[in-house]
C-alpha cells in the first residue's frame, strides 16, 4: 500500500522550503521532493536576502543562517563603453541591530533552510524528480509521479514550488511555457578573493557588504542589468538579459559577462580573483501580467513557478518565501476547518496574496517590463548621454558652466528629441505608478 500524505511540496528552493516548514509546523503530514542532491544543490547563485520574509518564519535566523554580509552600501551605475555615472547610497543606519538585507550564497543558505524544515518534522526526499501530477477522474490533482520505481505518491494537495521553468505545471497544463520576453537569462560567476582584499577594495569591514547594480551599454542594448555582490571571501558577479534579446542579438550570455568583467569600472574590482562556479539561471521578468492561475482543485503554485519576481528590485526569493508561506497557511487553515482542498476553498491563498506586498508590488510594476522592452533607449541612449553630461560638467577646460549646461541640454536633445525625453519620463512614471 503506497504511502499517503496530506500535502506534497515540489521543490526545495526558498518557496518550497517556506511552504514545507509552515505545513510541518501546522501539523500537516507533508512530503517535500527536491530534484537536486540536496536542497540548494542546484541553486548556486549568490543573492540578496531580504530579512523580513525569513524573519516572519524564523525570527532567530540571524544567529543560525549562513549569511555572508549585511548591505551598507548600494551603488547604481549607468555604464557606457568607458565610463560610469551613478549613485552610491551608504549609511551607518544599515549597521543596525537587525539588518534588512544580506548577501548570501544560495547553496549553503538553502541547505540550512532545508535543515530547519527537517527539524520541523517534514519528510524531505532529494535526488528525486517529479515528472507529473496525478489526477483523479474529476481532474482533481491527487498526487505526484516521480522518476523512481514505485514513485506514485498521493496527497490531498500539491504545492508546486519547482522554479521558473515549472515543467511540472506546464506538463500538467496548469501553465504555459514562459515567453522568451518574459524571462531573463542570468549568468553568474563566483570570484574568490581574500577577505582583506574585498574589504579594502569596497571600503568595508567586518560583516559589511556592498551591492553594485549596473545598467546601460554593458547589456549592449539589451534589457537587463549586471551586478556585483560582496560575500565574505568572494564576489558574486553576473549579468542578466531577456532571453528574447539574446535570441534577437545573437549575443551569448557568457560573452556578455566577459565584456562586463572587462569594463574599466569593473575590471580592477575583480583583479586577481580566482573564478569558480559558473551558473546560468532563468529569472521570470514578465511580472504581474505573466502570472499563471495560482490554484486549482488540489494544487497551488508559488514562487518563481508562479512568475512572482519583482525584476526592477531583483526581489524573488522573498516573494518566493512569502507566497510559499501563504499557500501553506491556506492549507493548514482549511485542514483545521476540515475543508477539502478544492479550488473554491484554495482561493483563500489568492486573497492572502492580494492583501500582501507580493501582489501589490507586482501590480505596481505590471507595465514596466513591456515598457522598457519596447523602449531600448533606456539602456542605450541614456547611459551615453548621462556620461557625456557628467564629463562635460566635470572637466575644467576654461568653459563657463552656463555654456556647459547648454551643451548638455543640447546633447540630450540631439540624442533624443524633446518629445522623446518627455515621453520617456512619462512612460516610466506610469509604469512605476
Amino acid at each position: 500500500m503506497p504511502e499517503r500524505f496530506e500535502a506534497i511540496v515540489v521543490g526545495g528552493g526558498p518557496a518550497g522550503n517556506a511552504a514545507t516548514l509552515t505545513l510541518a509546523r501546522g501539523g500537516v503530514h507533508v512530503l517535500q521532493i527536491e530534484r537536486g542532491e540536496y536542497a540548494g544543490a542546484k541553486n548556486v547563485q549568490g543573492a540578496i536576502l531580504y530579512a523580513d520574509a525569513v524573519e516572519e518564519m524564523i525570527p532567530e535566523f540571524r544567529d543560525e543562517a549562513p549569511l555572508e554580509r549585511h548591505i551598507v552600501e548600494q551603488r547604481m551605475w549607468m555604464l557606457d563603453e568607458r565610463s560610469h555615472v551613478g549613485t552610491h547610497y551608504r549609511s551607518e543606519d544599515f549597521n543596525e541591530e537587525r539588518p534588512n538585507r544580506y548577501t548570501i550564497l544560495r547553496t549553503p543558505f538553502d541547505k540550512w533552510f532545508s535543515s530547519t524544515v527537517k527539524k520541523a518534522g517534514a519528510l524531505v526526499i532529494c535526488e528525486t524528480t517529479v515528472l507529473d501530477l496525478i489526477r483523479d477522474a474529476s481532474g482533481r490533482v491527487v498526487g505526484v509521479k516521480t522518476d523512481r520505481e514505485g514513485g506514485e505518491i498521493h496527497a490531498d494537495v500539491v504545492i508546486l514550488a519547482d522554479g521558473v521553468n515549472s515543467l511540472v505545471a506546464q506538463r500538467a497544463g496548469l501553465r504555459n511555457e514562459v515567453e522568451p520576453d518574459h524571462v531573463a537569462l542570468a549568468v553568474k560567476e563566483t570570484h574568490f578573493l581574500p577577505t582583506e582584499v574585498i574589504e579594502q577594495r569596497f571600503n568595508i569591514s567586518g560583516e559589511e557588504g556592498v551591492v553594485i547594480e549596473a545598467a546601460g551599454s554593458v547589456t549592449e542594448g539589451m534589457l537587463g542589468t549586471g551586478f556585483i555582490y560582496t560575500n565574505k571571501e568572494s564576489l558574486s558577479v553576473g549579468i542578466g538579459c531577456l532571453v528574447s534579446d539574446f535570441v534577437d542579438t545573437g549575443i551569448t550570455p557568457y560573452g556578455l559577462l566577459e565584456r562586463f568583467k572587462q569594463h574599466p569600472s569593473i575590471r580592477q574590482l575583480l583583479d586577481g580573483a580566482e573564478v569558480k562556479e559558473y551558473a546560468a539561471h532563468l529569472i521570470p521578468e514578465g511580472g504581474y501580467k505573466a502570472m499563471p492561475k495560482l490554484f486549482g482543485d488540489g494544487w497551488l503554485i508559488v514562487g518563481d513557478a508562479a512568475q512572482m519576481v519583482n525584476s526592477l528590485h531583483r526581489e524573488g526569493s522573498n516573494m518566493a518565501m512569502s507566497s510559499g508561506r501563504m499557500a501553506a497557511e491556506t492549507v493548514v487553515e482549511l485542514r483545521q476547518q476540515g475543508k477539502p482542498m478544492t479550488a473554491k476553498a484554495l482561493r483563500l491563498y489568492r486573497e492572502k496574496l492580494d492583501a500582501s506586498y507580493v501582489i501589490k508590488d507586482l501590480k505596481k510594476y505590471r507595465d514596466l517590463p513591456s515598457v522598457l522592452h519596447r523602449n531600448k533607449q533606456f539602456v542605450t541612449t541614456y547611459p551615453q548621454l548621462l556620461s557625456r553630461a557628467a564629463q562635460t560638467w566635470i572637466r575644467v577646460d576654461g568653459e563657463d558652466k552656463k555654456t556647459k549646461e547648454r551643451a548638455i541640454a543640447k546633447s540630450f536633445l540631439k540624442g533624443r528629441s524633446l518629445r522623446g525625453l518627455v515621453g520617456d519620463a512619462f512612460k516610466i512614471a506610469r509604469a512605476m505608478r
Partner: protein
Amino acid sequence: MHCVVCIKQVPDSAQIRVHPVTNTIMRQGVPTIINPYDLYALEEALRVRDAFGGTVSVITMGPPMAEAALRKALAFGADRAVLMTDRIFAGSDTLATSYVLSHGIMRLAAEAPVDIVFAGKQTIDGDTAQVGPGIARRLNLNQLTYVEKIDRLDPAADEIVVHRRAEGGVHVLKTELPCLITMLEGSNSIRFASMDDMFRAARAEVTVWSAADAGIEDQTRCGLRGSPTVVRKVFAPKPRQEKAKLIDTAGLGAAEAAPKVIDALLAADSKLADHLAAG
C-alpha cells in the same frame, strides 16, 4: 550472509578549491559525496545479499555530518548504518583508521557473524588503498584487492572465487570466507533507489558509536596519536617557468601547417629526430 561495507564521505575533489593566497583548502561550499570507489563495493555487497539473502551493513568513521553518506547508502538498499565518530578519531591516518574500523566491524560481528567486508579500491582524498588491507590484517580476513568480479560464491562451503586485477592480466583466486574484498572501479554500477528505499532511508536510525561504544581501549592508537605518518606541509604545485613555444601556423591550412609543426618539433629535439628515423 552478512556483508559489511566501509564507506567514506569525501569532499568532491572535482570541486576542491585552493586559496589563491594561502594555498590552503577552501572547503566552504564544496559538496561532500560518498567516495565514488566505495559505491562499487556497496553495489557488489547488495548483489551478494540479493543472491544469497542476509544483510548489508555500512560503516564509516568520520565527523557527525558523515551521516549523510550513510543515509545515501541506506537509500541504495543497505540494511543498517553505523557512524563511528569521536573526537579522538580526528587526524587518523590509514593505520589508525583501519584500527578504529576493525573494532567497529568486530562489534557488528558480535551481533551477526560477518562473512565479507567490502571496501573501495581507494579514496579520492586520502587515496592510499591501504585501509582495506589494514582491516584485513587486523581481523585476519583473507585479503582480495582489486577484484573485478566475484566469479563464484558458495556460502555453504564458505568458498569464494574472484577475478583479481594484476599487472598485464587477471588472477583467478579461490579463498575462504570470511574475507575482505576491495572492488575495482567499473566492476558494476550502483543501482537507482526505489521510492520506498528513499522513504526507508530518510526515516532509518543511524547507529552512532564512540570509541568506548566500539570497545576501543587503547586510545593512543586512534587519531593523530595513533598515526605514524605526519603531514608536514601542504602546498600548491609550482607552475612551470617557460610556457609552450607556439608554432605559428596562422593563415595556413592544416595540410601546410603540419610539416611546419613537424620541423619545429624535430629542430627542437634531435634525439626525437633520430628516434623517428630509427622508426
